[in-house]
């Protein structure tokens, strides 16, 4: 009898999934959260969403033309559309049009095509774009509109939405009244005022945050819908559970420990978990096949590293949100993790030695 152990992957097993199929399923999984975001933030968000997706596809086509490849089949695989979609999800919903174009450009050109296209990139394109935009345009990237569902009384109309998207919020007299800070940003500012925790969140509903009824990025407000989409993706077998679970668990455990030790200065795990950016990163960004490790063990390390960095940046960093930085930093560590946690070669032990043929030896003795 040969020693059996579970195979982690086999190069000889043909997959019946195509890139196009995977991309379509991921898009399906993020669409509830996106739809909810579009509903909450109205027409300007829809403008930005369409502009970002469109420019992502155009940039992809442009790069492929430049490289002398045929553009059509590559575009049809939907990866550029998905990158654009993920970028759009992380943008402030009422950002001006050029933020969307610049974000799509950075994601597609600098994040993906300069490395040689799909499957070659070191960093997650969407997060790269988000961070580059955040560093370059801090004002536009931190202007968060209030929740104002389409057709509600204080929501901007269709015509008004074009002026928001194409000439910016700055021109509007009521800009200050229509914007504010995200929950994490608000907590950070209050801390700098020497106000401490139970008071800060006295009349703040974490439950509404969790549902997504709060200020935040276009498609990242609803932790609930993002988590639902993510779990569905795991059940579909598109992503594995290792990264999301280890990431969320690390954040929960760390913030839980600190919150129990000092409830005034460290927010509870519930606040962390109800921030949609964390869910989005855990299920859709960190699980990117290309930029995360190959083996389950490596993925656990990767997820835990992301979780640790998110907690550290959110708690002690200059920026209120750390998901983007955390994922990019761990992306850079992926080759290292892959080096130390290689998949077991078929027919060999982890250390590379051939499997012992115990059975054969025994038979020989008999």
């Amino acid at each position, binding site marked *: 009898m040969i020693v059996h152990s579970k195979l982690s992957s086999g190069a000889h097993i043909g997959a019946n999934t195509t890139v196009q199929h995977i991309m379509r399923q991921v898009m399906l999984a993020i669409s509830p959260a996106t739809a909810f975001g579009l509903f909450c933030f109205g027409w300007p968000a829809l403008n930005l969403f369409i502009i970002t997706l469109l420019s992502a596809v155009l940039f992809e086509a442009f790069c492929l033309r430049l490289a002398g490849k045929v553009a059509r089949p590559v575009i049809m695989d939907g990866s550029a559309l998905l990158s654009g979609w993920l970028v759009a999800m992380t943008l402030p919903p009422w950002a001006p049009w050029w933020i969307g174009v610049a974000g799509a450009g950075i994601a597609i050109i*600098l994040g993906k095509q300069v490395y040689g296209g799909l499957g070659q990139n070191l960093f997650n394109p969407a997060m790269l774009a988000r961070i580059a935009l955040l560093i370059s345009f801090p004002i536009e990237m931190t202007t968060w509109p209030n929740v104002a569902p389409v057709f509600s009384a204080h929501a901007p109309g269709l015509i008004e939405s074009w002026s928001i998207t194409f000439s910016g919020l700055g021109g509007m007299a009521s800009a200050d009244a229509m914007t504010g800070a995200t929950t994490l940003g608000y907590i950070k500012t209050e801390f700098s005022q020497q106000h401490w925790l139970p008071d800060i969140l006295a009349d703040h509903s974490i439950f509404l945050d969790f549902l997504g009824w709060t200020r935040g990025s276009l498609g990242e407000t609803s932790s609930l819908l993002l988590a639902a989409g993510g779990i569905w993706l795991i059940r579909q077998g598109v992503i594995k559970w290792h990264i999301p679970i280890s990431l969320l668990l690390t954040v929960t455990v760390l913030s839980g420990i600190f919150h129990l030790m000092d409830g005034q200065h460290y927010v509870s795990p519930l606040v962390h978990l109800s921030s949609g950016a964390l869910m989005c990163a855990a299920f859709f960004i960190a699980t990117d096949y290309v930029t995360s490790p190959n083996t389950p063990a490596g993925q656990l390390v990767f997820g835990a590293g992301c979780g640790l960095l998110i907690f550290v940046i959110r708690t002690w960093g200059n920026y209120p949100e750390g998901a983007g930085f955390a994922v990019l930093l761990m992306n850079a560590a992926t080759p290292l993790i892959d080096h130390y946690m290689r998949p077991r070669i078929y027919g060999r032990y982890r250390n590379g030695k051939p499997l012992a043929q115990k059975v054969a030896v025994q038979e020989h003795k008999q």
Partner: protein
Amino acid sequence: MFISESYRKIMRDGIWDNNIVFSQYLALCPLLAVTVTATNGLGMGLATLAVLISTNAIVSVTRYLIPSEVRIPIFVLLIAAVVTVVDMLMDAWLHELHKVLGLFIPLIVTNCAILGRAESFASRQPVALSLWDGLMMGLGFTMALVVLGAAREIASAGTLFANASLLLGDGFKFIELTLIPNYKGFLLMALPPGGFIMLAFIIAGKRLLDRKRVANKAQATLLSEAIPEEIR
């Protein structure tokens, strides 16, 4: 004829084929640090040019005197002395520019390209050639700094040669351009990562040009003469 040919080769090497930045990828530290604007690039380039010509000349004149065992300390000593002299002269006579570049001028000492030229060229070649090499390598370096500085300045601030009059005098006020009025500013390009990204794009562009040139040349020769089968 022979001499003029070698001069032409040095010129081509310095400015394009063997450019310090775009082909040898040397001296990237000062390059990325100062090229936030084209003016800073030009100032740093000219200062480096002055140092490069002087050190090349001194090393070449004294090349028979310098024993190879102690050549490195001598080169470093010379370069450090010349850089300090340039630093002091700039502080005295180009004070406004020195305030901007002050931090980076002493860095020229660590510019490996200068030691590289002393070691690989000036210590083996006659004075006139070494002077010419210093001039051309320095011009190539200046060009790289100006091109990169201009690209980053346009992308990050929408201007070109801002504050050039500090460097060149008030007569040059006309080259201070605002190319994109009311530009929001793409801050990333003014930060160090933007320097790397822009440099990568410029190098990619240069390689594209080189490849096209080789292809054109090959085509031209193909047309003009029949090439034996095995070479093709």
